[in-house]
């Protein structure tokens, strides 16, 4: 019984759905056409489909109209004036070049970020710096927040410079210029690789606050100055500029 009912049921369903399906196909075909040709072909194809007998044939006709629509669209596009075609092509090239440029810029940004992250990780894994890299927030007198309790440890001229180590700021900065904090002594309170803020406005404010851009991108340490004669109690200094003082020189 199911065998007998199945095909008949399916046939009835098809009969009901086929006109809707054909109509949809024809609608799709007309949408493929250029705007100026839609009215003409929608009427012409509607009149043609009226003369086709059988729902399946009508659907086949409508399907053929989709291909016709695509061909007609391409035909009329290739018939556009040369100048218009050149302009369209130029625009295509510009857009595609722009997209390519954006892609490569994005890729290089990602690459730079990855390299930076890798460099930081390398520093950490080599034991040169075990502090958790963190961008300093707030003003210089605020201690940077630490994400973990990993003890910062740095190596300078074979000596370990860890948190709490007593150090002296050397006479020159890594670029060879005189260090503004030369001769100051203090303790390392934390260390990390500092990165410049991403936005130019923040960068300017950052530079103003810290006044020593030498250590940007390098391992740096925050020093709590021994004699708080300086208005700032804490300073950031590149690890390269630090000299470890022996324990007995501590004040």
């Amino acid at each position: 019984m199911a065998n007998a009912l199945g095909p008949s049921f399916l046939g009835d369903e098809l009969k009901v759905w086929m006109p809707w399906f054909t109509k949809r196909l024809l609608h799709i075909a007309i949408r493929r056409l250029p705007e100026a040709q839609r009215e003409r072909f929608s009427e012409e194809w509607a009149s043609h489909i009226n003369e086709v007998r059988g729902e399946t044939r009508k659907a086949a006709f409508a399907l053929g109209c989709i291909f016709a629509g695509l061909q007609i669209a391409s035909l009329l596009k290739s018939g556009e004036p040369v100048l218009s075609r050149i302009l369209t092509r130029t625009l295509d090239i510009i857009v595609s070049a722009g997209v390519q440029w954006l892609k490569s810029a994005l890729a290089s940004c990602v690459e730079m970020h990855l390299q930076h992250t890798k460099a930081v990780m390398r520093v950490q894994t080599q034991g040169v710096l075990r502090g958790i890299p963190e961008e300093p927030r707030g003003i210089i007198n605020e201690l940077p927040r630490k994400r973990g309790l990993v003890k910062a440890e740095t190596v300078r001229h074979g000596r370990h410079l860890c948190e709490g180590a007593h150090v002296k700021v050397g006479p020159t900065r890594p670029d060879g210029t005189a260090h503004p904090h030369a001769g100051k002594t203090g303790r390392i309170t934390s260390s990390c690789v500092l990165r410049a803020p991403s936005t130019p406005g923040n960068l300017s404010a950052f530079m103003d606050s810290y006044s020593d851009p030498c250590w940007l991108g390098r391992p740096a340490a925050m020093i709590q100055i021994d004699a708080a004669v300086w208005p700032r109690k804490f300073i950031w200094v590149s690890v390269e500029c630090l000299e470890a003082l022996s324990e007995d020189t501590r004040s």
Partner: protein
Amino acid sequence: MSTEPRLTTQTLKVLGTLMTHSSDGLSGAEIGRAAKLQSGTLYPILLRLEQAGWLKSHWESETPQELGRPRRRFYQLTGMGARKAKSAFRDVTSTIGGLEWQTR
């Protein structure tokens, strides 16, 4: 737009149909039936020939309201189209004749 259309077998079928039945013109459905072409092939050819100036087309004179159905569009050969079609058929016939002669 007067670029020469490519004379494919299907195009020749359409031209042949219009040459043999041409009076007031034939609708797309009639051409399709006579030339045994599907809609996907037929309408691009008709448009291409029309753009080349070989065909002209017009709507049925009555309105859809009067007819009670969508209007048909009739196609007929232009003078130039008829000349070109005849010349094309002459070329094809001579080529086929040549081939036939060679195969004997």
